[in-house]
């Protein structure tokens, strides 16, 4: 569970069924369990108006559990990047009354939220629940490159190679935590790298 450290550090809740006729779920890996847990609290017929977009990830589990909820549509995608064009299209054609539920890793929640913000949904209007890995999406503040699935502190920028302190400072617009050079004064100083975001 993510703890609140500074104001921009996102905190997540627990999915709960919202009123409305159209419900769009976007989840990866163990995020599926947040949906199945919520289903127990949902009114009868709730999934008749629900669409689930799911990225199973490496372990490939939970697809059957989501099928069992009998949503109107279940779209299984190999990666977030592969589902993004379809998500953007769905949001462009959607109307007020669509409710969004995001569950899984911070990277997935952040990137889906980014697309939804661009479509005009306020971040406070979305349901989120963090499940699974704490791996972070990080932007290097120096070269602006984004490195996915950062688990260590400090972390190497996959673009410019600088050694970065992964801050709790988060940007909703970029869907990324900020990484700042940890040894700018003396590059020869290499602090130990620890597994901070398993």
């Amino acid at each position: 569970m993510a703890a609140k450290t500074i104001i921009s550090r996102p905190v997540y809740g627990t999915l709960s069924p919202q009123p409305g006729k159209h419900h769009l779920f976007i989840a990866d890996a163990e995020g599926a369990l947040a949906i199945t847990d919520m289903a127990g609290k949902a009114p009868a017929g709730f999934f008749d108006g629900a669409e689930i977009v799911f990225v199973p990830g490496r372990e490939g589990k939970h697809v059957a559990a989501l099928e069992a909820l009998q949503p109107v549509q279940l779209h299984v995608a190999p990666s977030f990047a592969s589902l993004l064009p379809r998500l953007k299209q769905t949001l462009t054609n959607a109307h007020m009354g669509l409710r969004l539920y995001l569950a899984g890793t911070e990277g997935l929640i952040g990137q889906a939220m980014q697309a939804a913000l661009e479509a005009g949904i306020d971040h406070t209007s979305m349901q989120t629940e963090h499940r699974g890995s704490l791996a972070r999406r990080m932007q290097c503040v120096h070269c602006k490159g984004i490195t996915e699935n950062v688990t260590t502190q400090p972390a190497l920028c996959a673009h410019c190679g600088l050694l970065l302190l992964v801050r709790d400072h988060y940007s909703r617009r970029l869907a990324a935590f900020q990484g700042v050079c940890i040894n700018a004064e003396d590059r020869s100083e290499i602090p130990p790298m620890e597994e901070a975001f398993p």
Partner: protein
Amino acid sequence: MSTGTTKLDVVVSDVVPVNELVTRFHFRRRDGELLPTFSGGAHVVVEMRDGDRTRLNPYSLMGSPLDTREYTISVRRDDVGRGGSLFMHRQVEPGLDMVISYPVNLFSLDLRARKHLMLAGGIGITPFMAQTAQLAGAGGNFELHYTCRTASLGTYADVLQQRYGNRVRLYHDDREERIDLERLLSSQPLGTHLYVCGPAGMINWVRDRAAALGWPPETVHFEHFAAPQPGAPFDVTLAVSGKTIRVGSQQSLLEAIEAAGVDPPYLCRGGVCGQCETNVISCDGKFIHNDHWLSEEDHRSGCKIMPCVSRFEGKSLVLER
């Protein structure tokens, strides 16, 4: 000095009857300077000095926020109210010096919205006059649905249609025209914000339907100034200032507190802003809560009251004031 109640010395520059119930009043600063900037949805509190009685009533500013040479308000005559609107209609003439508050906005546009969907009922049209002018000046995307009893009571309907054409849709009660609310609320693009101003019944209906249809609460904005209701007189002890006062039948609790020389904070005087929220120290009797600010739980607890619109019936009431 109460929060947000800095005063402006103005002169009534024009009084224009609009229809059989509504009259428009124009105010300019007595010193000839420009008035303070405001945004669409803002209101001012107008001081009405009527003999030995002072009423303070809120009215939405309806002019364009782009023009601060004058402020305009429209007042609907209420023949059975506490007399504020009758005072405005009968006694306020061009050239009269009056005092109004700085503008305060409790019903502002959320400018992050992709589209603004506005629903007005009756005199609830006034804040939308300013908001549409503000949005039109900035190329904003809006749509106004305006319900009125009859065409002749459709205050400013002609002006709005002339200005904005088919972005304004009228519904006349006497022609049995009704908003198809279900369809309207189900067909709005993502990023639309909803604004509703009108009678309490209309506001509740729209808020209920919007919530049921999945509109997040932060996208639904509403304003309803509750006029203080008259009632039986009652006595109140103000514990902090050590005074015992009587609230007259035509007076609000807030007005009675002010008449006793105590200066509590206030902004809207209509039960919506929360500024005058007052703690109850003890009571023996029942509250008549008329505000839109306190939660139902607060109302039941009997620990808080909004003195601008709410009253009390019973043996004793002690307030932390």
